[in-house]
Structure formats: C-alpha cells, structure tokens
C-alpha cells in the first residue's frame, strides 16, 4: 500500500528463499572458487530448476492448502512411459500420447483427491499408497505391453518444438513453460479469490468450509494439478530424450519438498508464496548442479542441502514471527 520498502519485503514469505539463494552463491564463491561467469552461462542447473520447479509449483499450492502429494515421484516416469508406449511402441499419433500422459495424471490426481476428501487418512499416507501403486502399474504395464522397461519414442517436430527441444545451446524448452506457469500460478494464488480460498483452507479448513468455500472441490482440483504437472514433466522428458524408462522420479519427492520449504511455505499450511517456491527450486538447483563448477567434491552437495534446508526453515520461522508481530506506525 505504501509502495516498496525493505520492511515490507522482509515480511514476505519469499524473503528467506532469496536469502538462501544469495548465501549459497556466496558460499560457492568464497569456499569453492566458483567461476561465476561459467556458472551463470551454464544450462544444466537452469534445466534442473525448470523440471523441478514445474512440479514444485502445484505441490507448493497443495502444501499451502495443508495437504501433501508425494505420488509425483511415480507420476514423472508414468508420464514419460504413457507417451512412449502410446506413441512410440504402438505408433499412435503424438497427440494421443500427450492426452494419454496428461489423462493418466488427471486420473491419479482424482483418485488422490477423492481419497483425501472422503477419508480422514492424511494425504501423506494416501499419496504414499498411490505412489507405490502407480510404480507397480507402470512397471508391470510396460513389461506386459512392450516386454521392456525402456521404450524409445520418436516425436514429430512440432511436438519437440513445444515440449522437448534445446535452444540457445543446451537450454531445454521446458524452462519457458516453467516461467510461464510460475506467472500463471502467481496470478492465481496472489491476485484471485481462488488464492484466498487456498490460504484460508490451509489456515483453518473447518472455518473455510463454514465460510462457504467449496473445500472438497478445491482440494481435488489441487491434487489433479499436481499429478498432472508431474506427468507433464515426465512427458516432456520423454519427448526430449527420445525414450522413457520406468525408473527415476523418486528424487523429485524430496527435492520438491525441500524447494518448497526453502521457498518459505509453512509445512502445516496457510502461508507461502509462488515467488518463494520459484526461488526455492532455483536455489536447490544451484546447490545440486552448481557444485560441479566449484572445487568442492560434489559428494558434499547433500550436506549443503541439508544445512540450507534447516537454516532456511529457521529463518522462515523468524520472518514469520516478524510478520505476525508487525504493527504499523501511526500515520500522522
């Protein structure tokens, strides 16, 4: 309301993630003698951040709404196998493969959502169940249908242009998707009334429901968004690399949660921001991939991530308290 001020900025949920980003880069510069020019010129961590970030956005929304979705770990290979089996093995048009991959995401999201709404089982357990179940479906299904755990895919040019090609050297086109989706999610969460509903639901679901918010419908929608996004990332990977494997994706579970928490989202819901999640993914990617540009042995990267996660959470707690206890000065 009073324009930009540092005090205002410090109370935003994303402040901690920006600080983490700066701290990590400073650490690499001081202790790793990183070549900043090479680091910022490299595509590897941007690609990594984009793939991670697209999954982190909807999962972050779910966490703000007080839920969790770990089935994304299985949805990434599920998305790539769906399109590879349909359009690669059975030679169906690529559009069918795309619809198949995204449709599978919608389906699993609906299952997660309905179970979360109809039962009182925590969504961690529900999506743990669907995580393992989808892994089983993907492995058994691909062996049953194709006899292999890895399927080649040859996508036509237009599909590669939109979903999986490299530009400017080694940058994946999914980076553009990530930035676009971040803008859309930021608009929805921070500028529309749906965003208000998500915050309210994460803050106090009972009160939100009493205030007339269709919490069940909202929850199901968010679960569908998250598993479809994961499936989308898998699909883009298959189009880019011309093949799909049944394994992989499990790392995404922890990576997204770390990115989101570093991004300032409260684990119990009701607080967070899209810009924070964006920077969370970016920070995670720099730690994870940027270490190759330093003198530090890359085996240390997990230690750095662990320390960063803990300090980011502590920082975020502090900033949240500052935001809570903030009382504006009396205006003259």
């Amino acid at each position, binding site marked *: 309301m009073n324009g930009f001020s540092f005090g205002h900025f410090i109370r935003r949920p994303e402040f901690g993630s920006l600080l983490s980003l700066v701290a990590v880069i400073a650490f690499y510069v001081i202790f790793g003698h990183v070549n900043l020019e090479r680091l910022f010129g490299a595509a590897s961590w941007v690609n990594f951040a984009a793939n991670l970030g697209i999954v982190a956005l909807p999962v972050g929304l779910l966490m703000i709404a007080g839920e969790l979705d770990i089935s994304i770990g299985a949805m990434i290979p599920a998305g790539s196998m769906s399109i590879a089996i349909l359009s690669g093995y059975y030679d169906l048009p690529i559009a069918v493969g795309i619809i198949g991959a995204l449709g599978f995401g919608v389906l699993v999201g609906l299952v997660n959502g309905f179970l979360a709404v109809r039962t009182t089982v925590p969504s961690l357990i529900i999506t743990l169940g669907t995580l393992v179940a989808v892994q089983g479906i993907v492995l058994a299904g691909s062996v049953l249908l194709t006899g292999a755990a890895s399927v080649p895919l040859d996508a036509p040019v237009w599909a590669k242009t939109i979903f999986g090609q490299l530009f400017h050297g080694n940058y994946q086109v999914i980076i553009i998707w990530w930035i676009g989706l971040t803008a859309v999610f930021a608009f929805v969460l921070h500028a*529309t009334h749906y*965003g208000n509903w998500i915050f309210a639901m994460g803050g106090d679901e009972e009160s939100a429901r009493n205030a007339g918010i269709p919490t069940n419908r909202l929850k199901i929608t968010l679960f569908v968004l998250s598993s479809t996004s994961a499936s989308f990332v898998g699909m883009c990977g298959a189009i880019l690399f011309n093949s799909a494997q049944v394994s992989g994706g499990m790392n995404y579970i922890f990576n997204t949660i770390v990115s989101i928490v570093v991004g300032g989202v409260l684990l119990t819901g*009701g607080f967070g921001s899209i810009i924070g999640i964006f920077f969370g993914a970016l920070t995670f990617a720099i730690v994870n991939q940027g270490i190759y540009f330093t003198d530090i042995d890359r085996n240390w990267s997990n230690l750095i991530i662990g320390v960063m996660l803990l300090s980011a959470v502590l920082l975020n707690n502090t900033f949240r308290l500052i*935001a*809570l206890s*903030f009382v504006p000065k009396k205006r003259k």
Partner: protein
Amino acid sequence: MSQETPILELQHVDKNFGPIEVLNDICLKMHAGEVLCLLGDNGAGKSTLIKLLAGVYVPTRGKVLMDGKQVHFERPRDAQEAGISTVHQFGGTFPLMSIGRSFFVGVEPTKGWGIFKRFDRRTANVIAVKAVQDFGITRIDDGDRLVGGLSGGERQSLAIARAVHFGARVLILDEPTAALGVKQASHVLRIVNEARKRGLAVIFITHQVMHPLAVGDRFAVLIRGRLAADFLKGEKSREEITDLMAGGEDMAELEAEISGNGENLHSSAHVRAPQTE
C-alpha cells in the same frame, strides 16, 4: 419485548446420537436486540445446541422457527444464508492471513473480467478496517496486518464485525471470553453490547458466570441436555446461577466439605468464582 415474534425459536427440540440423548425437549426464544446467555457445565449439551442452530446438526425431533416460520438447516451454509452466524472461541479467523483477506474469505470482492478477474485487495482492506473500527477497535488501521498479530480480543472483535457486516441477524458466540484476559474480555463484552444495540439477537455461550451477567438480558441453564432454568436478568443472584450450573446442590455440598477441612479455605474461594480476580 417478548410479545413480538422471536427471530429464532426452538420448540421441543431433541437431539440423539444413536442411543445417546444429548438434548432433551429444549424450548428457547431469541429476540432482536437481546442477549441470551446459555450457561452450562462441560458436557451439558451447549456445543450440540449451537451446532443445531448453526446447521451442523439436524434435530432428531422438534422444530426450529425463524421469524415464526419453520426452517430446516441441512448445512452450515443454510443457516448462514438465513442470517445465523457463529463465532468460535478463537474467532474463526486465519492467523497467517491479512485482515482484509480473512475478512472476505468466501465472499471476496473482485475487479476485472473473465480470466483477469482478481481479488480487490484495496477495497477489501478499506471495508474490513472500517467495519472493525465502527465497533470501536480503533487500534486496527492497516488491513494488510496479519490476523495472528492481533490480540485475542481483537480477533474476536474482527470476527464479530465480520459477521455483522455480512448481514447476521443472530450472532452465536461460543465461549468468546474463555481464553481472554480480564481487559480483553471486557473489550469483547463491549462489542457484544454494540451488537445488541444494532438490533442483533446474540447468543452468548459460556460456563463462566461473571461475563454473561454483565451483558445478558435473558439466561438459560442447560444441565445434562435439559433446560434447567430460563430467567430474566436480575431474577437470580450469581450464587444461585453458579449452583444451578454445577448441578444444584453439588456446589454447596462441596463447599461445606472443603470449609470443614479448614486449611483449604483459600482454594474454596478459588473453586467458587475463579473469574473474579
């Protein structure tokens, strides 16, 4: 006052959960501009009664009338649309949301069209702050402040102001002062008074005696699911009410027992009226 049609009336209402009778033959009338204090010990059925009025539960038997006409609330939404608003102990607000945002949860003001329709934060903040200040809470002047940073009394006030702003005619306050300090509680009582002046029917639920005595016009005491007493202000003393709530003779007996013990005189005063400090 009691000649006019009550805003809300319960006629011989029962509520059972399976074989368990929680409420039995409850008859109550609530009038505009009147504060009804619903007293009762823990487990007396107060919460169940509120939930019946708020549309969370449907009565097993009996009738609920609004303005003399029978109504059926299937969901909380139905009761809200009829103008019955419940404010819970902690205000029913969202600690990590701004005042403006939490004020308009579920009824957000928007600007723009189509896919660019967006939440109108400025309007929301202005309206929310004005609504709260009209209730005399002038300390709240920035709609961007987080609700969790307000005191308990301010949060209650915000929730009550919200209910009134959205056209509540019957205000149900569930233990509004239970978690508050003395000063903040008097804050809330002042707001209850203001709501009454505006012509709302207020139902004040509590197991304390002091607070309702300050603002109540009519008192109803629930004991084990039955309406044990229904009287107007000034008809009974504080001691009589306390005894009623504790289940009649029990309290007097307990006191005699304790004072017979001699050295426990101090704690007897404490049991008697813990809220008198």
